[in-house]
C-alpha cells in the first residue's frame, strides 16, 4: 500500500465549512501529488482534471463492481451501505441505465439517446417557454422571492414530466418521490430514510404502472409511449422500462433545481458578469456552460477499476474504487484560467459537469435549454435583481451542490 502524505486539509464533506466552500479543500487536495485516499469510503479521490478525465474515459473503469466481486460479497456490500431489504428500490432504482455497463448499458442507452438529441429536445422549446412565462407571471408582483422554492423547484418536474408524458398536475408528486429516493444516496442512510425511499419507490412504481396502462390503451407522442414500443420490440424489458422512466424523472430533477439556484447565485455574486449577459444576449450559451462549470450540480461520481491501472502516476490494483470529483476538476487551474472567477464568456470551456465517457449525461441538451429559456426570460422581464439575503447556504454533502434557498429582490423591467 502507499504511504499517505499528511494532508493539510480536513476532508469532511458533510461539514458546514465544506458546504460553504468546497473549492478551497479541492485546491488543497489537488496540491498533493497523488490521489487522496478517503478511508471512510475506501475510495481514492481524484481532483485533477487530467486524472478525472482519464478515469471517466477509461473503458476498464466501471460504475459497478459486478465483474470482479462475487454475488455473496456484493450482497454484503449492499448490506453495509444499507441498500438491502428494500425490494422496490433494489429492483427499479439500484439497477438501471446509469448503474449498468456493457451490453445492457449500450442497449438501454441506444433506446434513450434518440429521445434526447438536440433535434428532439428543441421540440420542447415552446412548451418550456410557455411554462416559464406562466410561472414568472405569477411571481412578477412579488418584490422578493426565494428563487429556489418559489421558482426553480417547479420547473424541471414539469419539463421532464412533459417529455415523458406525465400530466402537469402530477409534477409535484414526481418531485416528492424523486427527492425521497435521491436523498437515500447521501451518506448516513438511516433506517427512517430507507423506509421513506422504499415507500416512495413503490408509489412511483405504481403510478408509472397506471400511466403505462393508459398509454398502452392509446399511444401518444411522448417518451413513455415510445418506450412501450421499444419494449414490445424486445429492446428492453418491463422492469428496464420502469427503471428507465424513473431514472429519467429523477436524474434531471434535483440537479436542474440546484444548478438553476447556483447559476442565479453566480450572476448575483458577480454583477459585472450579470450586466455583461444582459447587454449581450448572444453570450447566453457560454454563460450557461459556465454556470455548469462554476457550481457543478453533481460534483461526485465513482468508478471501479477492473484491472490494475495507473492513475495520477501510481498503480492501483483491480477493484480499486475511485472518486471522480468533477466539481474539483472543473476548477483545476491547469485547464481553466482563473478557475474561481465566473466568466459568462469563457471559451473554450471544456468541463466535466455532465461527466465524460460512456455515461455522459443524456439530458445535457434539455438542461441547457431549460437554463437558456429561463435566464433569457428573467433578463427580459425583470431588472434590479439582487440578493435579499447575502448569506446563502448550500446543501451539505459530496454528491449534490446547490443553494438551499436564494432570497432575492426583483422588479418588472
Amino acid at each position, binding site marked *: 500500500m502507499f504511504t499517505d502524505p499528511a494532508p493539510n486539509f480536513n476532508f469532511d464533506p458533510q461539514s458546514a465549512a465544506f458546504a460553504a466552500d468546497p473549492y478551497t479543500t479541492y485546491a488543497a487536495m489537488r496540491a498533493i501529488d497523488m490521489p487522496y485516499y478517503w478511508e471512510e469510503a475506501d475510495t481514492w479521490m481524484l481532483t485533477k482534471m487530467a486524472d478525472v478525465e482519464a478515469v471517466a*474515459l477509461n473503458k476498464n473503469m466501471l460504475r459497478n463492481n459486478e465483474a470482479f466481486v462475487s454475488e455473496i460479497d456484493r450482497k454484503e456490500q449492499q448490506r453495509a451501505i444499507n441498500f438491502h431489504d428494500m425490494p422496490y428500490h433494489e429492483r427499479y432504482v439500484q439497477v438501471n441505465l446509469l448503474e449498468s455497463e456493457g451490453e445492457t448499458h449500450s442497449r438501454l442507452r441506444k433506446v434513450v439517446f434518440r429521445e434526447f438529441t438536440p433535434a428532439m429536445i428543441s421540440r420542447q422549446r415552446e412548451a418550456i417557454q410557455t411554462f416559464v412565462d406562466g410561472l414568472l407571471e405569477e411571481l412578477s408582483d412579488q418584490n422578493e422571492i426565494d428563487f429556489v422554492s418559489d421558482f426553480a423547484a417547479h420547473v424541471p418536474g414539469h419539463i421532464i414530466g412533459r417529455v415523458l408524458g406525465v400530466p402537469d398536475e402530477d409534477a409535484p408528486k414526481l418531485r416528492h418521490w424523486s427527492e425521497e429516493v435521491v436523498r437515500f444516496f447521501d451518506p448516513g442512510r438511516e433506517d427512517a430514510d430507507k423506509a421513506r425511499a422504499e415507500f416512495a419507490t413503490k408509489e412511483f412504481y405504481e403510478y408509472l404502472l397506471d400511466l403505462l396502462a393508459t398509454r398502452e390503451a392509446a399511444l401518444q407522442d411522448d417518451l413513455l409511449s415510445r418506450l412501450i414500443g421499444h419494449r414490445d420490440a424486445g429492446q428492453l424489458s418491463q422492469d428496464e422500462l420502469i427503471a428507465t422512466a424513473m431514472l429519467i424523472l429523477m436524474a434531471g430533477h434535483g440537479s436542474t433545481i440546484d444548478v438553476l439556484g447556483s447559476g442565479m447565485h453566480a450572476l448575483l455574486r458577480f454583477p459585472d458578469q450579470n450586466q455583461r449577459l444582459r447587454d449581450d444576449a448572444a453570450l447566453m450559451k457560454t454563460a450557461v456552460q459556465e454556470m455548469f462549470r462554476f457550481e457543478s450540480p453533481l460534483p461526485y461520481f465513482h468508478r471501479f477499476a477492473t484491472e490494475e491501472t495507473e492513475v495520477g502516476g501510481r498503480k492501483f490494483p483491480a477493484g480499486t474504487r475511485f472518486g471522480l470529483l468533477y466539481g474539483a476538476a472543473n476548477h483545476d487551474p491547469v485547464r481553466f484560467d482563473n478557475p474561481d472567477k465566473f466568466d459568462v464568456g469563457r471559451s473554450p470551456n471544456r468541463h466535466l459537469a455532465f461527466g465524460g*465517457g*460512456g455515461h455522459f449525461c443524456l439530458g445535457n441538451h434539455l438542461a441547457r435549454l431549460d437554463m437558456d429559456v429561463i435566464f433569457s426570460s428573467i433578463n427580459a422581464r425583470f431588472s434590479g435583481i439582487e440578493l435579499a439575503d447575502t448569506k446563502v447556504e448550500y446543501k451539505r454533502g459530496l454528491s449534490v451542490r446547490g443553494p438551499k434557498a436564494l432570497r432575492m429582490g426583483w422588479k418588472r423591467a
Partner: protein
Amino acid sequence: MVKLTFLEADGSQVETDVAPGNSLMQAAVNAGVDAIAAECGGACACGTCHCVLPQDWFERVAAPASDEIDMLEFVIEPQPTSRLSCQVVVTEEMQDMVISVPDT
C-alpha cells in the same frame, strides 16, 4: 507529425500538425476547432464531434463500428461520408487531408 486542415462551416480553415495515433477529435480540440464540442471526451457517447471526410479518404480509413453508425443517425444533417471524429485514428497516410466540420 501529420498535417491536417479542418474546414469550418464559415469557410475558415484551421491547420494543425498532429502525431499519428491521436484521434481526429483530439487534433481538432487541440487546434481550437470550436464546432467539435466533443462533449463526452471521445467515447462515442454524445455525437458532438461530427465531421465529414473527403470521399476518397472515407473509403480508405477503417470503417465505423456499429455504435458509431448508430450515433451518426442523430447528428445534424449527416452526409454519406460523415464520421465521428473521436473514432477516426490519425495515420501517417492522412498527410494534407482536409476535414469538413459542419456547424452545430
